[in-house]
């Protein structure tokens, strides 16, 4: 028997392209974050509110990832910012080559912030670097307070946690203090925002974080 030593990362091609994306975005001074969550946590709704709040202050662009349809891109486009839809046709996550192609369709010289809305999934997107600066994970109160413990890799890799649908807290079985405790147990460095897209609560302070990061 003969043995060939390899010692290569399985996702090295993805990581190489992610680094190229990151360099290109940094050279153009575009602050980029990767928005991840389960399906239905409210990523697109948060983005719609974010765009409305920020579009007169900074230049935003959006890359939308979905398994099927361009419905989310249509929703974002109605708010008057450039958006590119990626349809993965069954793929459960975005990868760096898909983002490279999407970036080429955007005028990044003319952007301050790029938001990548990933496919709704808390597993695979944790492993695929896209070239973003940070990951922002969204969890909604309807998903229960134990979610960070069930998906530790994603919560460990994220820098920001948005707890969405806080207007529903009186009606759902979710203890927000327990949720925050669980999230910080996985990642004590998480910055946390509590939002509701129905009442608009918390959107302003979340948008303040974006402006702060974009101006660094």
């Amino acid at each position, binding site marked *: 028997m003969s*043995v060939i030593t390899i*010692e*290569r990362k*399985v*996702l*090295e091609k993805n990581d190489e392209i992610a680094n190229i994306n990151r360099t290109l975005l940094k050279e153009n001074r575009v602050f980029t974050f990767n928005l991840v969550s389960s399906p239905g946590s409210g990523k697109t709704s948060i983005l719609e509110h974010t765009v409305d709040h920020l579009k007169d202050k900074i230049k935003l662009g959006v890359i939308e990832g979905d398994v099927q349809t361009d419905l989310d891109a249509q929703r974002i486009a109605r708010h008057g910012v450039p958006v590119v839809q990626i349809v993965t046709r069954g793929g459960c996550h975005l990868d760096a080559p898909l983002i490279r192609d999407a970036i080429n369709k955007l005028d990044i010289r003319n952007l301050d912030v790029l938001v990548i809305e990933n496919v709704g999934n808390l597993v695979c997107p944790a492993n695929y670097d896209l070239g973003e600066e940070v990951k922002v994970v969204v969890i909604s109160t309807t998903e229960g307070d134990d979610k960070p413990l069930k998906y*530790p*890799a994603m919560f460990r890799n994220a820098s920001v946690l948005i707890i969405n649908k806080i207007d529903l807290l009186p009606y759902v079985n979710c203890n927000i203090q327990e949720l925050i405790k669980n999230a910080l*147990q996985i990642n004590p460095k998480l910055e946390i925002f509590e939002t509701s897209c129905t009442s608009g609560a918390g959107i302003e302070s979340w948008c303040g974080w974006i402006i702060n990061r974009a101006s660094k």
Partner: protein
Amino acid sequence: MSVAKNILDIVHEHIRPEDETKVSSIILKVGELSGIVNESLEFCFSTLVHNTPLNKAKLIIQTIPISAVCNSCNQISQLEYGVFFCEKCHSSDIKLISGNELQIEQIELED
């Protein structure tokens, strides 16, 4: 499935086409935090190599535990899945040193 495809792409870069039928195993290091379900990866891999010259190749997965060094007391802890604090001083200010691996270590060929 895309992970299994990436593994095969790397194997093809190292093995000449005429040697593919000799590949007996591919040794893979998989960290417990890598998000890989071994059975799913093995299934995807076997589906991709079915009826190809690589159909005798077995995927051998070595699971790598999650471990971390404490930034407060320098203790190295082996962590259970989802528990992120130092086993000695219980500080949560720790740096992961293993558990995220997803790497092909070696390929074994029959003579």
